[in-house]
């Protein structure tokens, strides 16, 4: 079957998609977006997390046909370029700066999930809320402490940016 998906703001089509393929497979193997990772394929590890119609989901558990006509944002779509100072989202920059990345396999899913947490929380979230929000993302390397640091850092900066925008004269 043919599947149309709005991916990172662009209407894309994939041909010859088998009904049993997942959204994750379509993104990685048919649309050339390998950011979301394929690990447990059971919704346990969260490394395939992408936005589907604005909400983070495990792309491995979404049947390809379910994504027809939907909007998907992957970790690639959060950045506007590769420039570490300019192009990356605050969450991506914070992961780099806080040392929250070791092998990197869980990182794309964690960044999308953390991005959603920060976008949906007006204040800087408490550590307990960060941990709960990331409960569906497994990391085998870091022990999570630097990841929590990164999320706190990104949330603090985004809150500061918002405050600065409010104060700035028009």
């Amino acid at each position, binding site marked *: 079957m043919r599947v149309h998906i709005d991916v990172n703001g662009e209407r894309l089509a994939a041909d010859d998609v088998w*009904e049993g393929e*997942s959204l994750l497979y379509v993104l990685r193997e048919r649309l050339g977006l390998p950011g979301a990772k394929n690990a447990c394929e*059971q919704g346990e590890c969260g490394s395939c997390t992408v936005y*589907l119609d604005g909400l983070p989901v*495990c792309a491995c558990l979404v*049947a390809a*046909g379910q994504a027809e006509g939907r909007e998907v944002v992957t970790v690639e779509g959060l950045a506007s370029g590769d420039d570490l100072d300019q192009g990356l989202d605050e969450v991506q920059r914070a992961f780099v700066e806080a040392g929250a990345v070791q092998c990197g396999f869980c990182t794309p899913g964690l960044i999308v*999930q953390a991005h959603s947490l920060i976008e949906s929380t007006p204040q800087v979230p408490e550590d307990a809320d960060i941990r709960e929000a990331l409960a569906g993302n497994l990391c085998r390397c870091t022990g999570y402490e630097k990841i929590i640091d990164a999320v706190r850092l990104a949330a603090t900066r985004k809150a500061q940016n918002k405050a600065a925008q409010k104060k700035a004269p028009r």
Partner: protein
Amino acid sequence: MRPFAYQRATDVPSAVAAGTGQAMYLGGGTNLVDLMRLGVATPEVLVDVTRVPFDTIEETPGGGLLIGAGVRNSDLAAHPLVLRNYPMLAQAVVAGGSGQIRNMATVAGNLLQRTRCSYFQDITKPCNKRVPGSGCPAREGDHRNLAILGHSEACVATHPSDMAVPLAALGAVVNVESSGGPRAIPMPGFHRLPGDAPERDTLLRPGDLVTAVELPALPFAARSRYRKVRDRASFAFAVVSVAAALDVADGVVRDCRIALGGVAHVPWRAERAEAALRGAPATAEEFARAAEAELAQASPLPRNAFKVPLARNVLVRTLLDLTAREDLTAAGDTGETS
């Protein structure tokens, strides 16, 4: 994964028309897609019902709630009327899965999810639920997380849902559509005990489509709580859970609704505990007596006997919480136990 045909339904009649033979309905897919990949579920036709417009939550004329089958778990848990009138339901839903899972999982899919018994999920092992008559290795094998109530020689599986526990306590009604017309199946009773047919989790017949879950008006459920014990702080199935609503006046229990999760093939309505509590003083001693009355019928297996005192203690603790604290309906209380 076995090859299958994929169809997209746009309304209830077209879904029911497509749902014949070896068809299965696809909601959020968080359990079914996994089971298909494992080879446990092998539908010939997958009828995607995620575009059927039954994704709303509406107040009923009687003061209850009509929850569409396709409502996402995250939307259900965040709904103001659920938080205000049925806090144990909101607490149970956020206690299940992860954020990503709750964003996809639907109400009907949550009710119809299959057991997480490891033998059921492993097609190289016998399992009476997956292959009737093939045997049950769990009785002699790994059953730490399995049933202590209502199990049979054929099956000791537990129902994995958190959400279904408060629904059973509330006496929710499951609305079903089929080629033979609509019908309504009350909980508890929608899910069935295994008996000698553990392959059937519910009273649903092939082709039946769950369209909504109706919650009755129950004013005292505004004071209710879901307490879940699990092996880690988050994203784990219940070892034992309790949903309870308590109506206390002048120190006496006027009415109550109690159900247990993680202990049986069904969300277990604790009718004996309820009967023991109605009219009794709201004291720790009476709560313990009620819990004992319920769990006297337990028949644990060698490696899950700990669940009997655990369920008793969690039940007593939940009832004490409900009588001791004034802030239980607060939206921020997730009912989590870590």
